[in-house]
């Protein structure tokens, strides 16, 4: 991570500044909608960033990442439904359950490679989806309404839009910072080395499997946090957040923004969700435009938006 002044860094800096100042704009103009939209975007950006750690740096193409959104969300929702409203309990549980789930499915999935890996992660996410659908005590198919957001002993009030927004933003920046540290750490170099050439890494003395599995678990845990935030944001959690098309959305955000670039997923999430919002205001059939757009991006903009910006610099 070299701190040079170039197009992509400039864009990232502007975007981050705008995100920090957004609540001010919202308060001045009275535009509440934009604050709720961006709260959602930030949460998805956190989820996409965690997927990026795994996919972009670790080379593990998980097609089941939305499962952790659901797991984190259900941890909060179920505890709330059982009368445990404290975030100090809900959130650690959400993280722990996500980590455990990631540990189990990662341990099994990482035996496979390539498309088989994509499919087996998908299969596990679908299982989680069906389990959630069967939780009739907690809403089953229809989902579970959360009547009271997580409480933090008066430390922070999640029902206050601005406070919640800043909490989400802090989680995102914290998450990205953590990922940045990881990527440049010993561990991060090993994981990236394994992505590049697993056999070579084994030959120079690294047990690749353990490192990949650890990376898998870290990514799942961060996404579980995003799930806890998402459930609080919508006051609701349902199996639909775990459906495979949700995992597809997360992948799209990562690739759209630029895989293996630190802020790529944030940019991807903003572009994808803002576009979705704009197009759906303009026409009910927004996917008619979004779909071909994705195709064009794949065909003509390899490396995503960050890749494009990188090319601008080189002229």
């Amino acid at each position, binding site marked *: 991570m070299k701190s040079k002044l170039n197009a992509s860094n400039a864009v990232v800096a502007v975007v981050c500044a705008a995100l920090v100042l957004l609540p001010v704009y919202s308060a001045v103009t009275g535009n509440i909608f934009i604050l709720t939209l961006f709260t959602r975007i930030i949460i998805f950006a956190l989820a996409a960033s965690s997927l990026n750690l795994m996919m972009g740096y670790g080379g593990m193409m998980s097609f089941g990442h939305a499962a952790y959104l659901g797991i984190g969300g259900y941890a909060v929702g179920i505890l709330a439904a059982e009368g445990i409203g404290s975030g100090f309990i809900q959130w650690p549980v959400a993280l722990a359950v996500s980590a455990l789930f990631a540990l189990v499915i990662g341990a099994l999935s990482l035996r496979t490679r390539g*498309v088989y890996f994509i499919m*087996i992660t998908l299969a596990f996410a679908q299982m989680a989806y069906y389990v959630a*659908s069967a939780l009739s*005590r907690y809403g089953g198919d229809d989902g579970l309404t959360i009547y009271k957001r997580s409480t933090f002993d008066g430390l922070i009030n999640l029902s206050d839009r601005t406070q919640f927004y800043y909490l989400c933003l802090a989680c995102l920046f914290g998450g990205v910072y953590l990922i940045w540290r990881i990527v440049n750490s010993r561990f991060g170099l090993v994981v990236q080395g394994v992505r590049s050439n697993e056999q070579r890494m084994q030959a120079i003395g690294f047990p690749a499997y353990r490192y990949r599995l650890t990376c898998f678990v870290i990514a799942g845990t961060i996404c579980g946090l995003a799930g806890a935030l998402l459930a609080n944001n919508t006051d609701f959690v349902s199996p639909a957040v775990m459906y495979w098309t949700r995992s*597809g959305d997360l992948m799209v955000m990562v690739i759209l923004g630029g895989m293996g670039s630190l802020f790529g997923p944030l940019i991807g999430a903003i572009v994808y969700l803002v576009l979705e919002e704009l197009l759906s205001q303009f026409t009910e059939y927004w996917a008619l435009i979004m779909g071909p757009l994705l195709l064009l991006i*794949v065909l003509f903009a390899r490396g995503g938006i960050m890749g494009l910006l990188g090319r601008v610099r080189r002229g």
Partner: protein
Amino acid sequence: MFLLIEQLLNGLQFGLLLFLLAAGLTLVFGIMDFVNLAHGSLYMMGAYFAATFVGWTGSFVLGAVLALAATLLLGIALEFVALRHLYGRDHLDQVLATFGLILFFNDMVRLIWGPAGLALPLPTWLTTPVQLLPGVYYPAYRLSIIIVALLVAAMLYLVVMRTRIGMLIRAGASNREMAGALGINIKLLFTLVFGLGAALAGLAGLMQAPILTVQIGMGENILILAFVIIVIGGIGSIRGAFLAAIFVGIIDTLGRAFLPDLLRTVLSGAAASTAAPALSSMLIYLLMAIVLVLRPEGLFPAAKR
């Protein structure tokens, strides 16, 4: 006992239908190394075309034939306009691009046919039950699905194993450069294979249409099942896809039919009725996970490239 036979037949029917879908997917995947998520959309389009054409012509068979032709053309057009530019790309790129196509097709259908589902009524000659064994009746339509799908499977086998085209397809699958060096027009071959896969998906869609409602998103669930099948069967292997499809069809159907009662014998009534639907939906994925954990390349891996 009769119930078991009926459910076994239902499972076979569902499995054969899945095979039609999986065969196209595994051909495209195995030969062109192309992951096509939009395969489910072609299945959906087959169903919508059928509902429309049967309505126009008033004849089920004529409508079905027209729908089949339409899906074939749609598949070829899709390959020609978009997908051929994605061969040789990362699987991830292909996943992303065809994910975009799913979005597109779903909204396209919504725009043209509206958000509500369609029904495709059967002609009376297909609704009467047929007596298979003394006392065992089975719906004529489901039986005809079994027959048609078996015929198609047999034809597919003959085409792939016994004809020149099939030889080219297999050559293309095992060694693309070699096939190119032999002067085979790879581009044309790929377009043909893709069209064939699309037609098979369309056939599955239009045959399934009278049993389920024709609706948006119908392709997505079943697409994942088809992927499960080719992964279990081993990517690129038609034989593997056939066996895995029937296996999956039967397991899934029997699971849904008998698991609730089975669970009730070990669990309390409430617990069983909670667990059963989830467990029977999960069964297939569980199966795939077990297969992959034990055999990371599927049960019948095709020859290495």
